[in-house]
């Protein structure tokens, strides 16, 4: 089964977020990278861009297709992970140690509607049982 880390929050669309103070670090889950297959390019937003919860703001391209990544919460892009430029395979190697974007979170209450590790594990188990 795909790996799920305990101390993160998750979305149904397979993004993770870790919040430290007002800064949220966002990435895609192990399940997501595995479903996408070989990642070939990551299109990151510009620093300073404002995003709303649920808005697509990153595109992860794999050989199979292009996958939109949706922001788990609203906020402003503070930093992007430039290490992925030229090394997109890092997401396949370990999707949790290679984040995509750091956000200045504008409304912490939005975090409450995200999934915790237990709920996300359940979702992944269900999907894997269906053969996805």
């Amino acid at each position: 089964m795909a790996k799920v880390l305990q101390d993160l929050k998750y979305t149904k669309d397979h993004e993770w977020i870790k919040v430290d103070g007002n800064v949220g670090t966002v990435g895609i889950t192990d399940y997501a990278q595995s479903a996408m297959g070989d990642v070939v390019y990551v299109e990151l937003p510009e620093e300073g861009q404002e995003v709303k919860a649920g808005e697509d703001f990153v595109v992860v391209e794999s050989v199979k297709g292009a996958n939109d990544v949706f922001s788990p919460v609203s906020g402003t892009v503070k930093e992007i992970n430039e290490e992925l430029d030229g090394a997109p395979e890092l997401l396949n190697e370990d999707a949790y140690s290679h984040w995509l974007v750091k956000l200045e979170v504008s409304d912490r209450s939005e975090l409450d509607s995200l999934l915790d590790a237990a709920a996300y594990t359940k979702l992944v188990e269900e999907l894997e049982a269906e053969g996805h």
Partner: protein
Amino acid sequence: MTRTMETVFEASRKGRKGYALPKLDVPAADCGAVLGDACRKEAPRLPEMAEVDVVRHFTGLSKMNYSVDDGFYPLGSCTMKYNPKLNEAAARMAGFALAHPLQPEDTVQGALKLLYDLGVMLGEVTGMDAFTLQPAAGAHGEQTGLMMIKAWHESRGEGHRNKILVPDSAHGTNPASATVTGFDTVEVASDDEGMVDLDSLKSLLDDSVAGLMLTNPNTLGIFEKHVLELTDAVHKAGGLVYYDGANANAILGKTRPGDMGFDVLHLNLHKTFSTPHGGGGPGSGAVGVKAILEPFLPAPIVTCRDGRYTLVGAEERPKSIGRVRSFYGNFGVLVRAYTYLRTLGAEGLEEVAEMAVLNANYLAKKLSGLYPLAHKGCCMHEFVLNGGPLKSETGVSSMDVAKALIDAGYHPPTVYFPLIVPEALMVEPTETEAMETLDKFAASMEAIVARARSEGPEAFHAMPESTPISRPDETTAARNPVLRWQFED
């Protein structure tokens, strides 16, 4: 097949050449004196080759291709029918191939008549009132048609209509064309028979809808039985309906989009009207419209006035969307389509649809023991096999099957489309294949499925083995794009 070949850049030898120009018979001008700074300083690194080198190189390249002239090419949705040689000869006639597009009209009456007659004939075949032959490809035709829909709404003060409805089974080109024309795409769900769900459609219809794009028969090879209700519902909501002619081969002489309620359509002349695909182009996406959209056609159009053929430009057609490219279209392609239409006539065209549909149903039944079919009952000119069960059972994917078919001597069907069928294999035999070809293909498929069951996926991973290369590493290609020859210097 030929093994892999060196590139022309590797084959190049300094000082070789494959041309000879007549000696300059006027005083030589000096580039610097005439053009100043605009003179090129460094020569482009084009290959230097003798004519024989060039001929052998490109002959060698051609032998690494599989083509309709080589054999069966059941690529769904692409209508890979035989391309008659007469059509090639026609396009090369000096009066066509060597005509300058801006010659005085009285010196190109033959070319203009051909364009005019082709438009009239396509109008008759599809039930539309007028045609433009300008668009260079199917996608270009879609864009042109959608632009006319946009212009029509704007002319009625309804420019706010910004949505185009597209079934979830549609080709990716449909939503992409909607976007490039400034529309938002809204997907319409299919029902369990793969047809557009009438209720879902109705629930989406409001005064923000500009139109619906529909492929009929749809990408599962099924005729939309509610087509009149669908077009009627869109019209009632103030929208227009676009017919994607990708699958028009199935309906020639049997039914006409114009009679189904469509307002605008494109035909892929390189599919239905047998002009060759050329490895991906040139094609032609001729667009037909009902009278209400005629004023919006791209300029210029060809008309006939007092027995003389003439081009009418935007200055006389104020509502025209304008030009979508240079000149009048891919004329050489249009000559081929004209020749095909005149050769077949009405009966010949109907026979095309009949044999395309008979061949498809025959082959579908032959393969139905191997795969579940995505349709029930009769299909039209193509059908989709569901490769999901074989994959679950044996681990062999539809891509593996496709590669095995290459080793069996065929071009594979379209794989992984339409998206609504898992592990889809989309098969379009076309009318130009003989029964024994279909029988042999079915036997090959049977052998491949048997091997999948007995040996599993490992047996397939090395396939194809009969080709110059085996499966390419697409990940490396996309991660580290090498898009041009890398010179060593």
